[in-house]
């Protein structure tokens, strides 16, 4: 395992998460946490994948970690957990698999009769199933910690215990 490459990938994953955070207009005080949470989730996912784990399960675990960390960080940042977790997990979307799925479907459709090569069909099905399950793992993984903790909101999130908001609002 090349450690430099691993850290670099985590860094770029964090940057991709920041892009979505800015697109979704999250409060500026949460930007650093979004970056850190996303990078940690990516590190977890890559380490599990390096260990030989299936990409779907590794994505699920990485997304779970992101969900958990964002619950913890939401208390400190005075926001709701999903504001941190949604931008942080979106970079896990399997973009290249989806692209190959679309390309494969187009190629298959181009054949006038059913004599397309079996390799093409099996590759396309493989990419399609992988994309589908990875997307499911992302959505499920992020929601999982919230369901386990059985808290609809960060309930211990007491505004009065933190520093007061500026008086003018």
């Amino acid at each position: 395992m090349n450690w430099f490459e691993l850290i670099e990938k985590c860094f770029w994953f964090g940057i991709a998460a920041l892009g979505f955070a800015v697109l979704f207009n999250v409060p500026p005080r949460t930007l650093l946490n979004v970056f850190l949470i996303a990078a940690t989730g990516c590190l977890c996912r890559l380490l599990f994948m390096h260990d030989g784990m299936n990409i779907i399960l590794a994505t699920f675990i990485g997304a779970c970690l992101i969900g958990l960390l964002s619950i913890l960080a939401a208390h400190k940042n005075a926001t709701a957990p999903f504001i941190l977790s949604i931008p942080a997990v979106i970079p896990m979307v399997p973009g290249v698999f989806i692209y190959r799925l679309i390309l494969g479907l187009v190629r298959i459709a181009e054949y006038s009769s059913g004599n397309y090569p079996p390799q093409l069909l099996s590759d396309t099905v493989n990419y399609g199933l992988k994309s589908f399950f990875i997307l499911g793992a992302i959505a499920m993984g992020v929601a999982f910690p919230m369901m386990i903790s059985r808290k609809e909101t960060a309930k211990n999130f007491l505004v009065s215990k933190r520093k007061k908001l500026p008086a003018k609002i």
Partner: protein
Amino acid sequence: MSESESKKLSETGSLLLEIGNLLMCSGASTARVRMTINRISDALGYSTDLFITHRALMLTISDANHEQFLSSLKRVAPHGANFKVISGISRMSWRIVEDHWSLEQIRKEIERLRTVPHYSRTIVLLVVGLAGAGFCRLFGGTYIEMMVTFVASFIGLLVRQEATAKHFNQYLCVFFAAFVASFIAGSFKKFGLNMELEHAFATSVLFLVPGIPLINTFSDVIDGNILNGVIRGVHGLMVAVAISLGMLTTILIYHF
């Protein structure tokens, strides 16, 4: 029932609907909207029932003794993403519970949240371009591909913003953006660099992925708001179809 009390009831009802509208159109899940509105109305001493759909909210509010009630309906503004508003409303709801805010204070806070600033356009474009480059690196692209993706994402988002400002259909906006982004990424291969640019081409449209619908679909279905979840899912699917149509157009033009 005195005149002032009934006036207060209707005022509270319209404020709650406005809060629900802001939450819905900023990307909150159905359970979150219901929870926030119930929390606020409990703190103000009313009981509230809500009917939440994708593009309209219906609310019945009654006072503690159920002597008087008010039903009203509000159309939800077009959906977007604005987490600053959600965060602000979440904080406000707790301050209403704990500091017993008056209606006047709530109205002022809502006014403030409605005009809350976005990040400046240059920053959004640059960061989203960088995010595209990051995506490209994640899937194993080279540094040259990263630069190609940066340019493609940058211009793609610019096209989407311009199309949205001109009030095109939202799926058409996504289609335009996906088409332009992938067209630019593909043009580097077609006219300039004689190398494999698959990663750049595939990741140049990823800034368009419907992430909020994807995750809200799941949480809505899990929470039992199945109809809303299905609606969000179909919306997300339509965005995905628009993205792939945009890419397909490029693929057909370039014969990849």
